[in-house]
């Protein structure tokens, strides 16, 4: 095929996907920047250019800083724990412990359910006075606690829900990686006299690095993308203790109808995601061992 024909063909093949991607990913990202520099139209008042005013307002907005801080804590609280748990689950399932079918089912089921549905169930669990946790802690002699209604425990309570939902999903990827490891490695290591822990730390973990990278990327994206449980369980409260960035965007854009401020906030979110993406690939690419 001639060069010209080849790239004509290629671009035709790409065209449908390219159009949709441009329209719903690239264009919005750029348009967001544009719209964040114009005020929100109200009634018959058209939008007017306001430059960086939104960003200045953002800096002065204590709720924005709270949302940012919340999101970072949330990421910090959910990502390492769910990955560690996922690895543990994968190791256990892989070890062929008795009841492994049940274990795999139990660990993976939360992933299949919609977050909005599980949030309702967890809301029930956390209800003070007669929710499940109350009943259990009461039976064990602990005092009552309003998990979702107190600033110090609301966000951790949501983190638990997220970890519960995600660990099983990540487990599958680790399981795949573990099962594709050659048995010869273990045999060779055993012959050399390596202990189980040593083998795990020095052989298994490094070999799992590509999986860890993949899982990490997913977990980071989810920490910023998934806010369904907030809608059901706390609506950002109490006093913004559980307000995450995307939820704040949702609130500003679709409850306060301030589309220009929402655009500015979205820009911050996009910048954050892009930075994380670059950092992850730059840093972890170097430390990854490929089989």
């Amino acid at each position, binding site marked *: 095929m001639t060069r010209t024909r*080849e790239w004509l063909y290629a671009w035709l093949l*790409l065209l449908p996907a*390219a159009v949709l*991607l441009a329209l719903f990913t690239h264009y919005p990202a750029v348009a967001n920047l544009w719209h964040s520099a114009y005020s929100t139209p109200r009634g018959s008042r058209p939008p007017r250019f306001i430059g960086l005013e939104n960003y200045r307002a953002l800096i002065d907005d204590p709720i924005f800083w709270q949302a940012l801080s919340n999101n970072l804590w949330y990421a910090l609280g959910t990502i390492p724990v769910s990955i560690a748990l996922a690895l543990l689950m994968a190791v256990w399932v892989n070890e062929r*412990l008795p009841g492994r079918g049940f274990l795999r*089912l139990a660990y993976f089921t939360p992933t299949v359910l919609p977050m909005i549905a599980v949030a309702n169930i967890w809301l029930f669990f956390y209800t003070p006075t007669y929710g499940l946790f109350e009943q259990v802690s009461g039976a064990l002699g602990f005092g009552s606690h309003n998990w979702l209604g107190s600033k110090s425990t609301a966000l951790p309570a949501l983190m638990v829900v997220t970890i519960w939902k995600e660990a099983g999903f990540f487990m599958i990827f680790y399981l795949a990686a573990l099962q594709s490891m050659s048995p010869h490695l273990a045999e060779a290591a055993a012959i050399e006299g390596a202990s189980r822990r040593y083998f795990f730390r020095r052989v298994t973990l490094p070999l799992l690095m590509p999986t860890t990278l993949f899982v990490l990327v997913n977990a980071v994206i989810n920490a910023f993308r998934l806010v369904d449980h907030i809608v*059901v369980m706390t609506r950002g409260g109490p006093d913004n203790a559980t307000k995450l960035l995307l939820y704040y965007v949702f609130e500003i854009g679709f409850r306060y109808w301030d589309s220009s401020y929402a655009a500015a906030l979205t820009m911050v*979110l996009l910048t954050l995601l*892009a930075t994380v993406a670059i950092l992850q690939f730059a840093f972890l690419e170097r430390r990854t061992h490929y089989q």
Partner: protein
Amino acid sequence: MVETATGVYAPHGVARSLETIAAWVLGVLWILPLVYAFWTAFHPSAFSTRLAWDAPLTLDNFVSAWRAAPFARYFANTVILVTMVLAAQLVLVTLAAYAFARFDFPGRNVAFALVLVQLMIMPDVLIVENYRTMTVLGLKDTILSIGLPYMASAFGIFLLRQTFKTVPRELDEAARVEGCSPLQTLWKVYVPLARPTYLAYALVSVSYHWNNFLWPLIITDSVESRPVTVGLQVFSSTDQGIDWSIICAATLLTTGPLLFAFLLFQRQFVQSFMRAGIR
């Protein structure tokens, strides 16, 4: 049966028992919410907070839940949505992946990098702008509008490109020798060989779009286009008090099909998700 890699290091004796117990405890904890939801849904309201063994079973909650909102329509909408999205994705993703895998053209790397942007910047975080776009296109409040931003899936393109790249060149050339056009080669050679990847991707996609909530919430506002996740939320956010039994019943209703499918096809599900991971 293939011996697992840790077979040599598998725990024995006491260690094994301890690990088994720990794994089981975690498993029970993990499945507990679902079990509790089942309990609450099948027993009358009065028992939703009391775990009495002799509580009477009832289907009333399901009946109330079904009647309280047009779930049949919501289900239909969701099925139409996931089918529409998957069909579009399969076509678009196959064509694009083929272009990236087998064609050499200027700007290919840049284009691929641009595609990968969507992996990090998903339509979910671009809700404000996409809402505006949909309004301009006049598509607001339609099932199409829910699915449109997702149809060009970067994840799918990435996966399939990887798979296509592993197809031996000889098969490609053999097809060319027989006089196949590139598209025919795609259809006859590449697509059949990528079947496991397609299955994996399909399961991921259906799962994701069945469970998607925030974007459908924003872009739909009528019963005719609302999927089941939004229907569940609209239904359970009452101004007048929450009846947990009915909400649990509604929750089980909405997750029922997926759960059932998962239980039946557990093995395939798990295998597919495993395959969807990056090697």
